């Protein structure tokens, strides 16, 4: 006979309810927390970290000229640090934005850039080798220009100052001729004119000569200004003649310094002041400066367009190919570094951790490690060749455009830089489209990101050029500034695009994650409650069995009892306990038998 009562069953019931509630509540809380976590983790793209990583990679690339490796320093670091054979995080697959950084090399530190510049400088030939007096183009061009100006405006006007020209009568060869004090001046001087003989053949050069003597390269200047302008050149800080690469500002500065230079007699100064070139203090007027620069820019643009029309693109391509070929060793080295160094580092780490290393064991383990590394590299051979191929395309396009950009001037130069950025980013886009492992939404997303980054880089480039012009910052300062701004802007744009998630790529992933988590947790909860139920049923069945047995025993004994000789109280006490009747039988009896006297 046990001491069991119905209370134990009730308590088991209550425990069950408590446990069940607790299980369900915990699961619900858990699911909500995970839901919350999944939603929030995706927004926490650590802007600071990503900027820092890109910055470190770009610094190395710029200052150590590692563009040709087509691997960045931070990519290498990350891979070496986190490499295992199972978790082989291949960052090259998602490197679209990084590729965009690699559109422009450092002007100051890139070997390729130096090489191209050197080649450009070396190939410059003088455009006009004939004496000026004998040059028919020169005479005819000037006359035509003067006539057209006269015809258009009825008189000759100084194009820089706006002052009207004056005539003096002069006798020449017995005849009286009116001579104007305004000269038709070559905006870009004839003497300084050069062309790149590597990419422009003789017919092309002839077209250039014609350009130099066309109205696009003439301006009406006062005789004094023209004479003192002379054959002005621009030199770099090493003393080299860079007139053929000079910007409109550089050229106009050189011309202006000629005008402002004081002569012994001071006559020139006076004349220029009288004719509106200089102000009272002997400085060139702003309006004149502006007009001069404008004309130079115009001339340079037209020159560039003419040059592009006659450029021998075959030669350009050949040169671009040879720079590409020269950088293949570096590309290959980059790939091998990327694929071989991380596993090697990993293996070395593993070996170093092993205890009790004897020489024999070390050598045998080394052989096995070498085998694994080789197998790993071989496994990725296909990727390696794909990377090299795409790097080669990138390098070719980069060099091709860089050569052309070196040839042109002014606004055309800027436009070509833009075209270069767009073309190279288009190539990236085409690569994305060809990716077999991406969904349409992912491709669209990548392309939008590439274009977003491209536009950002272009905008920064333009801003930098403007800043350079406005504030005259030196090149060594502009470069790091541009790197930093480009990286920050590109990362911010990426972040915004990620958040915008125009093609629901991120959202799709989120939904999939959440649904998966939900299913997992729900199954867990199901299993848990199932178990609770089973346990509950088992326990209660057992308790009920015991209780029933007890009660059956009570019944049996009572049925067998002789009420005249046996005491039924123990059995009734049992029932009292079982059903928690709270009867105090003894007290009841006492109250019963007390007789009031």
């Amino acid at each position, binding site marked *: 006979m046990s001491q069991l009562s119905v209370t134990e069953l009730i308590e088991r019931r209550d425990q069950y309810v408590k446990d069940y509630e607790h299980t369900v509540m915990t699961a619900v809380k858990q699911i909500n927390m995970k839901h919350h976590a999944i939603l929030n983790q995706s927004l926490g793209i650590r802007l600071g970290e990503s900027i820092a990583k890109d910055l470190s990679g770009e610094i190395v690339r710029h200052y150590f000229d590692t563009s040709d490796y087509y691997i960045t320093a931070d990519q290498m670091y990350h891979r070496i640090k986190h490499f295992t054979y199972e978790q082989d995080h291949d960052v090259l697959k998602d490197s679209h934005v990084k590729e965009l950084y690699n559109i422009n090399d450092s002007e100051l530190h890139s070997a390729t850039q130096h090489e191209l510049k050197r080649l450009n400088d070396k190939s410059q030939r003088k455009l006009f080798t004939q004496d000026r007096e004998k040059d028919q183009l020169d005479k005819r061009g000037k006359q035509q220009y003067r006539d057209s100006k006269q015809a258009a405006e009825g008189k000759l006007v100084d194009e820089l100052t706006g002052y009207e020209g004056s005539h003096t009568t002069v006798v020449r060869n017995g005849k009286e001729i009116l001579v104007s004090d305004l000269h038709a001046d070559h905006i870009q001087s004839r003497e300084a004119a050069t062309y790149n003989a590597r990419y422009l053949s003789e017919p092309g050069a002839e077209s250039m000569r014609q350009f130099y003597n066309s109205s696009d390269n003439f301006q009406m200047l006062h005789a004094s200004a023209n004479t003192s302008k002379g054959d002005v050149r621009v030199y770099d800080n090493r003393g080299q003649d860079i007139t053929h690469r000079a910007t409109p500002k550089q050229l106009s500065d050189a011309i202006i310094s000629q005008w402002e230079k004081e002569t012994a007699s001071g006559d020139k100064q006076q004349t220029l002041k009288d004719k509106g070139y200089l102000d009272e203090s002997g400085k060139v007027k702003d309006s004149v400066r502006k007009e001069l620069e404008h004309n130079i820019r115009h001339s340079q643009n037209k020159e560039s367009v003419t040059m592009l029309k006659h450029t021998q693109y075959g030669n350009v391509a050949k040169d671009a190919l040879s720079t590409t070929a020269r950088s293949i060793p570096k590309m290959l080295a980059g790939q091998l570094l990327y694929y071989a160094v991380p596993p090697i580092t990993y293996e070395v780490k593993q070996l170093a951790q092993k205890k009790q290393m004897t020489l024999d064991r070390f050598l045998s383990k080394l052989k096995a490690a070498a085998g694994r590394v080789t197998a790993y590299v071989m496994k990725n051979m296909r990727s390696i060749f794909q990377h090299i191929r795409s790097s080669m395309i990138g390098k070719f396009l980069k060099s091709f455009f860089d050569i052309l950009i070196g040839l042109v001037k002014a606004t055309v130069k800027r436009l070509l830089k833009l075209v270069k950025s767009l073309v190279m980013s288009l190539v990236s886009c085409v690569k994305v489209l060809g990716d077999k492992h991406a969904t349409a939404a992912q491709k669209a997303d990548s392309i939008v990101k590439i274009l977003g980054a491209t536009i950002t880089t272009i905008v920064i480039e333009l801003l930098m050029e403007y800043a350079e012009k406005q504030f005259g910052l030196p090149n060594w300062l502009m470069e790091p500034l541009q790197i930093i701004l480009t990286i920050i802007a590109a990362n911010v744009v990426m972040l915004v695009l990620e958040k915008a998630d125009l093609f629901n790529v991120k959202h799709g992933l989120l939904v999939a994650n959440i649904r998966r988590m939900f299913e997992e947790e729900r199954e867990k909860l199901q299993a848990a409650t199932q178990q609770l139920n089973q346990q509950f049923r088992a326990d209660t069945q057992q308790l*009920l069995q015991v209780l029933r047995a007890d009660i059956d025993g009570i019944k049996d004994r009572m049925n067998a009892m002789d*009420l005249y000789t046996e005491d039924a109280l123990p059995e009734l006490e049992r029932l009292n306990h*079982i059903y928690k009747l709270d009867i105090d039988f003894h007290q009841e009896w006492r109250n019963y038998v007390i007789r009031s006297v």
Partner: protein
Amino acid sequence: MGFFDKFMGRTRNESLISELEDLRESYNEEVAELVQLINRLYEEYNLRIEEVNDLRMNSWQAQIEPMQLFLSSFGNVKSSGEYAEEEMKLMMKRPKSEFEQLDQYIVDKDFSDKGMFLESLVKTPFYVAWRNKKANDKLELEIPKIQLQFEELLHRLRMKKEVTELELELCSLYMDTVRFILTFIRERIIPELTLIIAFFEAESLKHMVIAGQALGEVQYDYDIQLLQDTMYHKHYQFVRNAFFFYVISCKFYNTPVLTRLLEHTSDEEDLQELEDYQTLLEEQSKQLEQHMLLKSS
């Protein structure tokens, strides 16, 4: 639906809403099934309770009153008390609020039929499409949460079912015991009562005759304890047994034993324990949330 609908996100909205409606349907079915099951169990329980209540009600006439009369001759019988009914279970109603909430939610989030042309003119179609996309995204991410609510509901219902099944068994057990006691009294005790009264009357008469008292009204006021340990001990024993059966049957009569047992959810202690546990859970979850904030920052 044409391109405009797709661009505006109406197509997607329609499919999401339809998904929600399907979910509602399937949960509705499951919930209805469970509620029906539980109510069937309740009905069975109530049938048994009715039986027990009938037994108990009738016990007054069949068992308690005769015993009370008998026992009053030998001692201070206290009152049997008022009859107290064992409570029946109320039928469970189908939980409506969750479904109504979901219906309202669906109405709010469904914009697949809303006119958007005018709005697009004012705010540009791009803005409207953008806003709709965000709304659809939010909706899609909410769906598992809604599912969770209903899963919770289902779980609670399943738990209720398990508990009700146990209570049904306990009800049977209780009914069985009550029936046994009452039957026992009716068959083993009640028949003996007149014999014993007759015996005591005879004894009384005997004594009165011996004492030479006048045979008038026979007093039935016997002190039962005097019979203890005498040759008439067996009568003492019987009356004592009968008394105890009286007490217990009164208890079954005036107390809704089962209802009271089942209502014992927790003592004060248990309640406090539950509350402490709840606070502990909340503390833990707050700490976890803070921890996660730290991690993600």
